[in-house]
């Protein structure tokens, strides 16, 4: 049985200024099931490497080490036909609903091009029908958006047009890179619901990339916590949120503000959290969280922590649980 998508020790090293090399992504491995559609949330702050992972899966940049397999086939050794099929099967929606539109063209074009490129329609009328159906599927009236230029639409409308593009293509996998961080609260819920519908109705899997644990919780299922390019904790979302192991995951959960005036947490925890802002320097051969970690030990500075399996689904990369191996 081959996985739908499998990342095997994927590493990306960028060369920075003055010959400095930054491991943006460090030996990341995970896989998604081929049989059952699945939503995996990749949660991390800026600098966690989550966008780099997305770009590698989409084949926009290639990893320095490791490989990515789609249905058992390495995506970097695909021939033309296979690549075209991969492009149709693996699609994306990005963070910035502004830059994703070429300002020179009308909005219609982002829907027309995939129809033409992937031969989705037999005739012009057919194509128009598909476009209308796709727009309506995401709650847009075609006459509100067709024939307009991108700057005439709001951020939410633009992001929804991108979703209708996905509806049109019905890929097997959607890479959603912070798709809701730049749109309004009221639209976020609709957006997340559309992703859930895609999974339930059309069997479309999704890698949902976010810095917001609560939207990851809403989408459910699987969760991967990234810190500075490494996976620090991986498992079922419910399980991690109820019982986090890694100190970073604990910090993230603690930092979530409940939208409830009766649960004011700001005054109670601030002294604890204040000093845990990211000021650490990057030292490759250690735990990368060590400078902010409330329970760091001397070994954490000397070695990369191993991956420890808590149970079949739940993994954590931390020396605190060394005896649980």
């Amino acid at each position, binding site marked *: 049985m081959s996985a739908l998508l499998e990342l095997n020790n994927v590493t990306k090293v960028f060369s920075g200024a003055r010959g400095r090399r930054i491991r943006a992504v460090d030996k990341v491995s995970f896989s998604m099931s081929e049989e059952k559609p699945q939503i995996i949330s990749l949660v991390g702050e800026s600098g966690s490497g989550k966008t780099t992972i997305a770009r590698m899966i989409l084949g926009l940049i290639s990893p320095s080490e490791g490989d990515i397999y789609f249905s058992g086939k390495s995506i970097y050794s695909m021939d033309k036909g296979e690549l075209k099929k991969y492009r149709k099967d693996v699609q994306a929606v990005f963070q910035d609903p502004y830059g994703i539109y070429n300002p020179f063209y009308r909005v219609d074009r982002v829907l027309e091009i995939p129809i033409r490129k992937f031969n989705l329609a037999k005739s012009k009328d057919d194509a128009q029908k598909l476009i209308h159906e796709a727009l309506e599927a995401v*709650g847009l009236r075609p006459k509100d958006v067709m024939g307009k230029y991108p700057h005439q639409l709001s951020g939410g409308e633009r992001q929804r047009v991108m979703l209708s593009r996905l509806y049109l293509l019905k890929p097997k996998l959607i890479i959603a890179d912070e798709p809701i961080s730049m749109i*309004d609260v*009221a639209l976020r819920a609709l957006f997340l619901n559309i992703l859930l519908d895609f999974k339930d109705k059309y069997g479309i899997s999704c890698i949902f990339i976010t810095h917001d644990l609560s939207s990851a*919780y809403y989408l459910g299922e699987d969760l991967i916590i990234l810190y500075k390019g490494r996976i620090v904790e991986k498992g079922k979302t419910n399980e991690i949120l109820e019982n986090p192991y890694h100190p970073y995951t604990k910090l993230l959960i603690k930092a979530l503000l*409940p*939208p409830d005036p009766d649960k004011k947490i700001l005054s109670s925890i601030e002294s604890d959290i204040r000093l845990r802002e990211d000021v650490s320097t990057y030292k490759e051969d250690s735990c990368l969280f060590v400078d902010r970690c409330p329970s760091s030990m001397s070994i954490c500075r000397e070695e990369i922590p191993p991956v420890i399996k808590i149970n079949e689904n739940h993994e954590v990369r931390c020396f605190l649980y060394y005896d649980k191996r």
Partner: protein
Amino acid sequence: MEEILKIEKLKIYYKNISGLAKAVDGVSLNIYPNEILGIAGESGSGKTTMVNGLVRLVKPPAYIADGNIILNYNKNGNLLKIDLLKVPEDEMRNFRWSVISYIPQGSMNSLNPVLKIRDQIIDVVVEHSGKSREEAESIIPSLLRSVNLEPSVADMYPHELSGGMKQRVIIAMALALDPKVVIADEPTTALDVVSQLSVLSTLYQVCRRVNASLVLVTHDMAVHAQLTDRVAIMYAGKVVEVGKTNEVFKKPLHPYTKALLLSIPTIEGKRRRLEGISGLAPSPTNWPKGCRFNPRCPYSKDICTEREPEEIEYEPGHYVSCFLYGGE
């Protein structure tokens, strides 16, 4: 208790190619001493334009079309009532920073990259108060400590600081002259989650300590729940609901507020399907006739499409503009 700042029917308009945009269209709000007032709303609701108006920093082509902003100002024991929209610009400049200080969105990126933090703070203090450079310099260590920064930060350049630290420097500057009102527009949006939390708590503490009122503008309802005493919900250039944060969250009146609160994902409690708000945000050049929320409102009646609802006090201190609660 008498309000320190009273906004009356504030209107801020601008002209663009598709007509006259009524970005802020008749906002009335009171700001009381020592309170934290939250301004919530989606992008395009006019919240940023509104607070720009409070300090008269409306960028052309936008202009203040109408309204009053009354400042109750205690100067050496004399209580003055001043309409900020009527004073000349150079007098207004004296009020900024020293009485009302404003932290605009993204201001942590406006620190001068070639000046040390010390010099930037001194410049602000000297420019907006009668203090000498030496006097200004002497308050820096305690000022930085009050925002949880080491005094040594004064000798650093902005690029040596993390985002959270820069935002603290901005807060320190805003509070350097003991203002009565601090206005912060999305002060933590660009920060990562952990820094967001610690910066917010600093802002909260320091305003409480110096007895300044804080006007906190953010789209993040969780922040309002955590920090504010009262919250005003803006939609389409108007305040549709305002009240004690507890009451607004517990018993939201306006259908828009209800929908907004139902759209926030949370890890608290059981997972429930979020509703969101269908339909599209209206455009400031063409607000819907009648109640501006009526095209998206599940409770819309005939009257909602014809007339704009008046603001009524539904419960003491809890105001709403919606025909569901009268106001016809």
